[in-house]
């Protein structure tokens, strides 16, 4: 796929990757129909609120230290400003740094929807430039500024010439995609369009695309074994560091859903090899991933030495806990990357995943291939393992839990864990992207599963005393009741 960084347009995943949000069936069907290209989305005639791509895009960009997002939107769109300000301050403090990245909003009102507010936007960008001295300014549209047709691209171009820092337009109209992960691509595109420069001199860095880099110390040590230095993106990175992304010796990511656009674009545009394997979650995942990095940069021997050492320490401990996890039945509901990744790890630990829900499904990545995690899962799972694609449709999740009655439910998105425990099922929130990273993470994860199923007090206490949100009628229906036929709008 050709990447074009001359303007701010990046296709949403529905168009670019054939991604869908509605499917109900089994693993084999999903994989087969992906490969032959016949997979079609199934719309719903009832939906509950889910997520907006703007959150995914802006959360990535505001994590860069000392930048600004000027949000051409009503006040509610910038509601995450305070939380993200705290989060990224704390993350910067972890590496003894500070960040002054800010959101400034134009607080659009009714008059603006009639007369436009491009001059107000210009003033707000100027205010942001003068007050905060950011190293780059991202100017974002919203549903409102998108629908009324504000020429944000034109203004950003003009200001980009006027100021001594990059001013980059981004398009975050929430209605343009049901797949909030499209926001990751929007952020990547903005960085590639406005910050990344062509390579001058190659360096020893490996770009590590992740969310909140909680395993930064461990990965730094790990890469030092290979004489490589990690360049974490985007949180805690700087504009200067990002300008050199094209000079890295390789790039990797913690989640294929998060990393597809940046990794593939850097490979195709600047020959930075993108290591696309299953992710470093669990033992197989970690070893496959680390070996591929070793191979890419010619450090196979070092990788094998490390693997042998770590195996000796951790595998016996993991095997011990596996005895107690064997045969537990699990349901999992996460983003498409993690659903398939964590399912593999759970199988490795001896659990049976009876149902997997993915919030969307990319039937190929930006290199045109089926996601590796799904391909791998085909080899390790029963062909009829039940899978569905539901954009966080909670009523479907609770219906699945009610029908399959698992021992434990695994979640990864804020606000979704509580619903399993309200129905009395143990639940574990796989919050951090490094929660299952490598040997130590896998051991920690196995222990957390064990703790969760050994003390069911919280869910039993709560479930006995609350009312569920859905009617008896709904619990009697098939989970796919509201899925329309394929292709029907």
């Amino acid at each position: 796929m050709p990447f074009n960084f001359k303007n701010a347009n990046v296709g949403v995943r529905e168009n670019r990757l054939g991604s869908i949000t509605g499917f109900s069936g089994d693993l084999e069907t999903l994989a087969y129909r992906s490969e032959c290209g016949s997979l079609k989305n199934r719309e719903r005639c009832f939906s509950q609120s889910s997520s907006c791509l703007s959150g995914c895009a802006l959360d990535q960009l505001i994590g860069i230290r000392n930048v600004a997002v000027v949000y051409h939107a009503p006040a509610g769109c910038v509601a995450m400003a305070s939380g993200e300000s705290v989060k990224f301050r704390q993350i910067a403090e972890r590496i003894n740094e500070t960040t002054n990245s800010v959101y400034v909003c134009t607080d659009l009102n009714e008059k603006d929807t009639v007369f436009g507010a491009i001059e107000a936007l210009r003033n707000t960008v100027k205010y942001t430039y003068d007050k905060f001295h950011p190293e780059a300014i991202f100017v974002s549209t919203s549903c409102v500024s998108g629908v009324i047709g504000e020429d944000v691209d034109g203004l950003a171009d003009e200001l980009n010439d006027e100021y001594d820092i990059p001013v980059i337009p981004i398009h975050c109209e929430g209605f343009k995609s049901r797949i909030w992960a499209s926001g990751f691509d929007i952020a990547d595109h903005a960085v590639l369009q406005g910050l990344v420069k062509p390579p001058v001199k190659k360096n020893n860095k490996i770009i590590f695309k992740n969310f909140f880099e909680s395993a930064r110390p461990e990965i730094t040590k790990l890469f030092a074994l290979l004489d490589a230095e990690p360049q974490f993106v985007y949180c805690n990175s700087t504009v200067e560091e990002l300008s050199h992304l094209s000079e890295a010796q390789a790039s990797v990511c913690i989640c294929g859903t998060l990393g597809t656009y940046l990794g593939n674009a850097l490979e195709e545009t600047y020959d930075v090899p993108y290591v696309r394997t299953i992710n470093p979650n669990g033992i197989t995942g970690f070893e496959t991933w680390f070996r591929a990095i070793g191979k890419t940069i010619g450090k196979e021997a070092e990788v094998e030495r490390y693997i042998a050492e770590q195996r000796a320490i951790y595998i016996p401990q993991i095997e011990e806990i596996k005895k107690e996890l064997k045969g537990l039945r699990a349901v999992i509901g996460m983003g498409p990357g993690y659903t398939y990744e964590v399912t593999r790890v759970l199988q490795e630990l001896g659990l049976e995943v009876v149902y997997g829900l993915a919030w969307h499904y990319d039937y190929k990545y930006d290199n045109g291939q089926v996601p590796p995690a799904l391909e791998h899962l085909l080899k390790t799972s029963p062909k009829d393992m039940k899978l569905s694609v539901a954009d966080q449709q909670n009523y479907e999740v609770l219906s699945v839990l009610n029908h399959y009655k698992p021992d434990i439910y695994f979640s990864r998105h804020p606000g979704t864990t509580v619903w399993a425990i309200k129905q009395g099922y143990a639940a574990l929130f796989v919050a951090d992207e490094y929660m299952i990273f490598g040997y130590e993470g896998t051991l920690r994860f196995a222990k957390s599963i064990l703790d969760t199923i050994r003390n069911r007090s919280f869910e039993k206490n709560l479930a006995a005393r609350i009312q569920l949100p859905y009617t008896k009628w709904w619990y009697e229906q098939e989970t796919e009741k509201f899925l329309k036929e394929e292709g029907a709008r």
Partner: protein
Amino acid sequence: MAKILDQARYKCALAAMQTVQSIPGAIPILHSGPGCASKLNDNNGTSGKFSANIFPCTSISEKEVVFGGAEKLRTTIQNALRVIDADLFVVLSGCTGEIIGDDIQSVAEDFQDEVKPVVWTKTPGFKGNNYIGHDWILHGIFEQYVSKFADVPKEKGLVNLFAGVPQQDPYWLGNLRELEKLLQSIGLKTNTIFGFGRGVENLQKIPAAEYTILVSPWAGIESAKYLEKAYGTKLLHYPTLPIGATETSKFLRTVGQFTGADKELVESVIRENEAHFFYYLERYADTILESRIVSKRFTVVSEAQYVISVAKFLVNDMGFFPEKLFVVDDTPENFRGEVEKELKSLNYGIQADVEFSTDGHAIHDQIRQMDFAGTPLIIGSNWEKVLARDVKGHFVNISYPMIEKIVINSHVAGYSGALYLLEEIYTAALAMLKI
């Protein structure tokens, strides 16, 4: 006109979906983008019976932007009625649906004959913030649902009570319960619609009340006035959330006079509460007087409610002096004079300067220049935490956003709420080097 919103301290009108969420049994149905609710749901305490990811939502996409979304809304309501176990459905519109001109009223009105009530309110984010949206939503529910019970007989001594905006005010529920207790202590019966044990049945009782008491500088005023107009419910608009002895006693006397409560009872309740309050103040006066690094001066950066109430408490009860105060809730122009007036009549002729602003950066610049004649005391939102650290001041987070603190059911209202606020202030102070 668009303006500079730097350090957002309010959200948009649609965020008042949390007002619906706070009425047990009621649920919003959103005609909005798929992610509006999750973005606006950034507070704690929202995983009750209906959380944001249970709210039915039309998840407007490009197709609806081009062809209209009324039909999508219709099927969403239809199926919500089947799937969701709620007592009241409140259809709310977001920005996009309003701009493309979807008529949510006519769609919602097609569900008039359903067993479960369906009402509607337009809450596009560009028309106002969530303080205003809160008022619109209550108005909508009063007009379209409560009106069905207009004929219930009046109940003597029954008071509809409203205070801080649910969820936006982190202490909304604790304060409401405390104000309720205060009213009950002087012989009144209270009717509230928010929080545990209340709900749709309490909505039905609204027309039965003799009085409505709104404790709020401005948020909620239109809906409260509507009750007066529609059901003849006499309204006491009390702009100051009472905190501490002076204000709470004044509040009880005002309410007593307004409702014709037994004067002797009111005075005996006040005597007892004040004695109790000052028992604690006497015991902790040493700590308060001799904390070496608490100066006399403070500022508040908050919604109008807390700017007024905290300033009055600290000045009139505790002998502090206000530096310039900042109201950050975008108080409508016509209420700004009232807010200022409240802050010009403090003890000993003390007058507080007040500025209305949404520019957090400019506010912080001013606070950095302030002369606190000692260690600054800053009462505000999470945004002021780093500022307080920079100016080596004490900091208490009292209002939205509240990110690094959790409030479950604490309150700052009333006599006991004041003691809690002192705990917060002196806990912050004691954590710093005292010598």
